[in-house]
């Protein structure tokens, strides 16, 4: 595995701990090797020491085994080089040959681009020019989001990548899809018989997808300023989650069969006209506020952020899906920073009972609709809300919740998203990776919003840190007669 951007945060926090954990579980081939490449000058020994510190620090729910590390570290190498310099690719080729010989890797190579997105195409082309896209074994390339910064650049990036690698060799990683609970959505829908018959416009009133962060940008303001919530979360992670919730059942659980259905769903997302954007998309930016005992500075007070920044730290969008199953059902997606708690979940609200026969007995209280909650994080699980009669005389109804909790039900550790996805890439299973047509379809869905917002001057900040976003977001749902759920 060749990691570009090996001295970066992602390698330290996610990739290397995930690889170590896979080694701990004996899921990597004995000759597995990592070649790290970045501009920083250091020896392989220095790199190993840094990675050891990172693994110790960021390894979650696992013990650190010194002996295992010693063995694992024998397969770690480092090259200093600039991706703009073709000589660096020659150095990689030379190192790969040596590793192939010494560790018997059979020529299989996974290139992992953990660099600036602007370098993806350049690196792919450099690999192609050096002939590294072909070899004795398989060659695959993993790229991190963002896959372009708009539809046009995504199409261009795909075209440049595909000049060097075949589509089946390109693995676009969306770590949300690697989360156990996102995978479990498919198990829940297609492994059980009771919910799928209800999974349509006849029984489902609307769906809310929330990905809330309680922290602000915390020093990453300069980076975040270029992205924004819509690009950073909705275009990729949350539209993929929505596709997983709403796609048709695949004929088999194979990579292309599943991805075909996801792509088909994403292509069915209604593309907004510019005049529809104000009613269906809300941008927000947090001002200063509190989260428990901590004061959270406003986004514009963050280092590196322009004092008049127009970046959206909150975005909420109403999507409609134009297909037979979902016509007319609104899908509300919201994401934001500096919200009251960290939570990612999908709330599926079913239609109310057709007759409120208990209204009199419940003192005029409205009928409480059934709700199914698929919790992605932090407390992974599934809840079903329904009403029940309270024991005793009279007919007093009250909402109750039936709860399944991963942690306490299975009691065993769930693999991290990167463990799952790295192992999938190594074994050639692209089911949980996004494909070119999926990426372009999701960009198509958000592009009108980006275009419209780029013409606006927002009165930011419009929500206080530690609250659930701007009031315009509530108004967006109110137009449909709905309210945001309190997660």
């Amino acid at each position, binding site marked *: 595995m060749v990691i570009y951007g090996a001295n970066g945060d992602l390698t330290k926090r996610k990739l290397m701990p995930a690889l170590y954990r896979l080694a701990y579980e004996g899921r990597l081939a004995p000759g597995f090797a990592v070649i790290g490449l970045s501009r920083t000058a250091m020896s392989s020994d220095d790199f190993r020491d840094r990675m050891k510190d990172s693994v110790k620090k960021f390894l979650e729910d696992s013990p650190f085994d010194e002996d295992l590390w010693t063995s694992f570290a024998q397969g770690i190498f480092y090259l200093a080089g600039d991706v703009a310099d073709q000589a660096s690719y020659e150095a990689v080729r030379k190192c790969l040959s040596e590793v192939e010989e010494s560790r018997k890797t059979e020529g299989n190579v996974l290139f992992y681009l953990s660099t600036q997105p602007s370098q993806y195409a350049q690196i792919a082309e450099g690999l192609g020019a050096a002939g590294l896209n072909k070899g004795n074994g398989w060659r695959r390339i993993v790229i991190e989001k963002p896959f372009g910064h708009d539809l046009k650049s995504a199409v261009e990036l795909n075209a440049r990548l595909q000049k060097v690698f075949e589509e089946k060799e390109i693995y676009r990683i969306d770590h949300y899809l690697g989360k156990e609970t996102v995978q479990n959505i498919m198990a829940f829908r297609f492994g059980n018989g009771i919910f799928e018959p209800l999974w349509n416009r006849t029984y489902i009133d609307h769906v809310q997808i929330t990905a809330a962060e*309680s922290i602000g940008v915390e020093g990453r303001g300069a980076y975040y300023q270029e992205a924004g919530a819509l690009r950073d979360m909705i275009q990729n992670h949350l539209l993929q989650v929505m596709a997983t919730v709403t796609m048709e059942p695949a004929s088999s659980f194979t990579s292309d069969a599943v991805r075909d259905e996801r792509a088909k769903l994403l292509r069915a997302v209604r593309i907004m006209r510019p005049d529809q954007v104000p009613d269906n998309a809300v941008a927000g930016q947090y001002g200063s*506020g*509190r*989260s*428990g*005992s*901590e004061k959270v500075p406003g986004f514009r007070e963050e280092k590196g952020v322009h004092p008049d920044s127009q970046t959206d730290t909150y975005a909420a969008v109403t999507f409609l899906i134009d297909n037979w199953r979902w016509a007319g059902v609104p899908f509300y997606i919201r994401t934001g920073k500096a919200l*009251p*708690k*960290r939570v990612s979940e999908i709330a599926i609200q079913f239609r109310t009972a057709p007759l409120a026969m208990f209204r009199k007995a*419940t*003192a*005029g*209280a409205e009928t409480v609709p059934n*709700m199914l*909650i698929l919790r992605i994080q*932090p*407390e992974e699980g599934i*809840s079903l*809300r329904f009403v029940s009669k*309270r024991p*005793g005389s009279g007919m*007093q109804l*009250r*909402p*109750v*919740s039936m*709860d399944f*909790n991963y*942690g*306490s*039900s299975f*009691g065993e550790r769930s693999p991290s998203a990167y463990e799952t996805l790295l192992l999938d890439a190594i074994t050639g299973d692209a089911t949980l990776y996004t494909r070119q047509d999926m990426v372009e379809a999701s960009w198509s869905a958000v592009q009108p919003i980006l275009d419209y917002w780029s013409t606006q001057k927002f009165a930011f900040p419009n929500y206080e840190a*530690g609250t659930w976003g701007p009031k315009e977001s509530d108004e967006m749902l109110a137009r449909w007669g709905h309210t945001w*759920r*309190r*997660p």
Partner: protein
Amino acid sequence: MAAGASIKPDGILKQLGELWTTMAKPEAAELSEGGVLRACAMTLISFVDDEEDALALGDILASLMKEHPSRAVVVRLKEGEDFLDARVFAQCWMPFGHRRQICCEQVEITASMDRLADVASLVGPIAVPDLPRMILLRSARLVRAGALRKILALGDKIIVDSARAGAPGFGELGGLLDAGHITGDLAWTRITELRALLAQLLDKRRPASILIEYAGKEAGPESRYLEAWLASSLEGCQVGLKGSGGAGDGKPRAIHVDTDLAVEIGHGAAEYDIGTLHRRASMSACSDQELLNSELSIVGHDLVFERALNHITA
């Protein structure tokens, strides 16, 4: 969590998650052969003043969990400055003849009054989604605080006991009603048995006047509620209040209906004559736990209570 440390909703929720994961592990489950069942039907947020009341509340919550299992959030408000601390734990009980423990989680937050804004931003996010949020307001300090409205906005229903010292007055309760809050008052719940008895006695009558006699110089909230309930229920009936003078708790001690029916209240019973028959009905002095148990059962609006409260505040 140590006092002075950073306390955030995510940290408390993480601790709660770890608590249940630990309790689900086989070694913990061995304590009861059948494991543990996490029970929760609401979030019950209680605001109390001092340690003494917090201890009393602890007993009440432990009793309530059988009928109203909840995520109990107890906020202890104290004098002093710049103090905020939180801890989580579980309370369990084993139903007789069962092998599985039933457990409820509890979050205890201790805060000085100057940290009320922090408390508001902590309590909202840790409430259980989709289930009722009940606020039990027993803190006189909080009633006096400026941040009261912000705190009370966290709940679906606010329960007070207007008979307690420092409790919100009828005007404040009416203000909460007007602001759209569902409210409950244990002083009202305390007269439930008496109201049930009077409803039976007056079912076939159209009384012209009713006089409620209370102990002491000033009518307590129970007497005021009784008057308001009768006046708002019996059109054309003259309902009055009369104190016995001297010392007294202000609670109703006799109800005179026209000139032919008198209900004497005292010693845990109500006594009255119908014709030549002398009748006695038990009027148990309900504990706080029993009153709360009853009030927590009403999640939505109690229209009869609201009508009585509106009558008082009109």
